[in-house]
């Protein structure tokens, strides 16, 4: 077997320690090694944003990140937001506004939205669209996603 490096990561509050090949992508580490299939891979070259997750509080493309780069990091994937019946505010807003169709881009969208709500004012529709511009969606035409973001009360605690 090829050279492997031991890494420790916290994913959705749980600590994992695994040996990985240096070339293993973070997206594949989560999906194949940890079996957390909620993170979706849409392009593997950092454009579509489907694989976006939160790493140490920032939205990150997991297809452009190696698993070894995540050593010591705290990661939140879509599985860590909220559960059916206990949606997070972002999940609730997406559900209420019909902000998803096939749902393939949704995990990445949620990560981007949570990050943007923490860091950006998002006062206007144009700002919301700009914040979402790095995540492609082919189903919704974005309108209901924009609506969902605009309806989330940014003052509310615990947005993720």
């Amino acid at each position, binding site marked *: 077997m090829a050279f492997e490096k031991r890494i420790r990561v916290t994913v959705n509050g749980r600590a994992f320690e695994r040996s990985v090949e240096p070339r293993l992508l973070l997206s594949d580490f989560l999906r194949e090694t940890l079996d957390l299939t909620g993170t*979706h*891979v*849409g392009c593997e070259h950092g454009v579509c944003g489907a694989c976006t997750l939160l790493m140490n509080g920032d939205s990150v493309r997991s297809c452009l990140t190696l698993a070894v780069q995540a050593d010591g990091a705290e990661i939140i994937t879509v599985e860590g937001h909220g559960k059916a019946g206990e949606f997070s505010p972002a999940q609730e807003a*997406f559900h*209420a506004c*019909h902000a998803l169709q096939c749902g*393939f881009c949704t995990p990445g969208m949620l990560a981007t939205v949570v990050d943007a709500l923490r860091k950006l004012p998002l006062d206007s529709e144009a700002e919301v669209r700009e914040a979402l511009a790095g995540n492609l969606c*082919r189903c919704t*035409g974005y309108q*209901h996603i924009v609506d969902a973001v605009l309806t989330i009360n940014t003052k509310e605690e615990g947005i993720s």
Partner: protein
Amino acid sequence: MPEGRYVGAPIKRREDARLLTGESRFVDDIRIAGTKSVAFRRSDHAHARIVSINTDAAKQSPGVVGVFTAADIEGDARPIIASSRMANYQPTPMQILAKDKVRFVGEAVVAVVAENRYLAEDAAELVEIDYEPLAPVTDAEAAARPDSPLLHDGFASNVLVEREFKRGDVVEALWRPPVKVKARFRVHRKTPLALESRVCLAEFQAAKSHMTLYTSSQVPGIIKDALVKALDIPGSHFRVVAPDVGGGFGGKTSLYPEEALVCILARKIRGAVKWCSDRSEDLLATSQAFDEIVDAEMSVDEAGRILGVTAEVIGDVGAYSIYPWTAGIEPVQVISFLPGPYRIEHYHGRVRGVATCKPPMGPYRGVGRPVATFVMERLIDMAARKLGLDALQMRLTNIVQPHEFPYKTASGMRWDKAGFVECLKDAAEAIEYAALRETQAKAHAEGRMLGIGIATFAELTGIGSRLSASPGMPINTGTETAHLSMDATGGVTARFGVTCYGQGLETALAQVVADEMGMLIEDVRIIQGDTDAVGHGVGAFASRGAVMGAGAAMLACEALKEKLVKAASALLNAPEDEISVGQGALTTRDGESALTYSELAERYYSHMGAVPLEIKNALGELSVSRMYDPEWGTTSCATHIAVVEVEREACKIKVLQYVVSDDCGQMINPLIVDGQLHGGIAQGIGAALFEELAYDDDGQHLSASLVDYVVPSASDVPRMAMRHPELEKPENLGGIRGIGENGTIGAVAAIANAVSDALAPLGIEVTEVPTTPERLFRMLDASKKEMSNI
């Protein structure tokens, strides 16, 4: 359909909970122990003879289970051929792996099976293929000429399909009138680009002689019907599952070589084999769209009445005629739909579908109609401009009027009554058309380039068995099945042949079943996307899911209620005609006795002796199955109006406003209807302004990443306003018209017309889409030079 508690209401989707929490299950999320991964070595030549293939090094690579070429799978499948009744049609057998010759960049030549995808890709790199390059056939127009090199040896020409529609006398119509407009229109090649690329996983259970194919497909029924024949597996032992599917838009409606191959390999290694396409493979080898040249001419009298239209279409259908739709699917429908919702007495449309060194052309959202609508709507605006008429008025003059339905179009299609005029007027009212024209005049006076674009069109949705979804195609796309069964608690499980790839059909069909049965929606479960669900199913395409699924559901609910009445008659000891069913219960006419569904089901199934055995034996399980065939199709229509501003210095086109008024009949769920329209419009904006698959003269693909193939982002799409005027419902079951493709069909034309309207002061008419910044720059530059020459 009677408006019930759920139908017509904005019910939040039941799919959402799993999709929002990561509990969804797409094909790549399915875990079967021991699954091997496939990676392909694909052709880097557009047209070449395969001289030799050396797989020795690949076979020695770590983790490799096997390396397969066409020779290694010879005899493992019968030929898969998209046949057709069309005259002069030349079918092309599917190449599962390229044998002897490659015909486009990206065609699969060698398959490597390994323990995981990393190792499979490592080994695929080590395959050595020696090619003898052949003359590339890349330009469809040149390829149609008799002197062109042939893509398929032994063919009469590269023209795979040819068709013609004629009505009246176009020569007379075009000769006589004072006003003519003509242009060569060009719509470039694009791709459906579902965010989930294609993935397929075959599991062969040798001890059971059973094959299961999990595939990200819109049409598990079609895949099953084709592969049981090709692979010679009894239908009872072949199951196709399309679980959660991450978008499709037509790109997942065809049978692909990779789907056949994973089954062949799973059978060979007696296990599970998966292929997960990366984005580059998706751009290289998923079915593509449009790519037509349309030479069209329209003649008009001075009052703006259209007298005649001619259209000569060349469609670039790529290297192979796609299964099952054939190479006719896209280009033939351009001439079928070109006359649109207008009264056109004289029409001549001719089309040739020409094979080139590109991936196969397949169905894409709108199929033919986006291009047909683009051409027709551009011609109308060009004629209106020439005559000094208003674009809206010119359409009102020519559109089929309410008293003229059913209307037979110049290409022979039949429009049943739909709100052509109503939607046109409603959209104009919604956007305050007259005031908008004044705003535009002011903007022009200030030197701003503001444009208004109208597109109005009609399409055929929910097509029954009297018409083929693709011309001359022999498979039946006109029926769908619903199977309902009631369990011992009174809950209903509804199984469907129509599938879902993200539209929300699972929620919509639950709404229909709950209303028809008079039950709570929570007590209805929907199963679809699995060929085990019903005896025969087809899939979701051609705006049929809601029409066919709801129709089948309504028939099945009616039959189930009849059965419940029979059971209740025995249990309540009352004649059947004295029992009514509704609100989740069966009640005798005198109101004395009643049984809820759960009481009835529990007694019927679980109380021994409650129902006389002869009745129970005759009646059987509380389940029914019904097929729905709407026979013809239902017209769906809309008017789109877009407002754009062209920023000259930046060569940027900004879409400022967008309004749609459509006639979609009875809405099952308005949230879903609007979502379908929004998404379709965004894709249409993509086709009008951004999305283009580029190939060079050697057939090399220049846009195999999302950096090169640009799709609209949130800031490229405007806020859209949707209007659904209350109109007479169509006569099909439920009064439903399909809506899935409506957005894309109208948007290409509306945007192109708006851009042309903005550029009208410079004398520019958009005839080529997408209007990328580069094309816009070239048009502006040419007009500047022209102006300075005056």
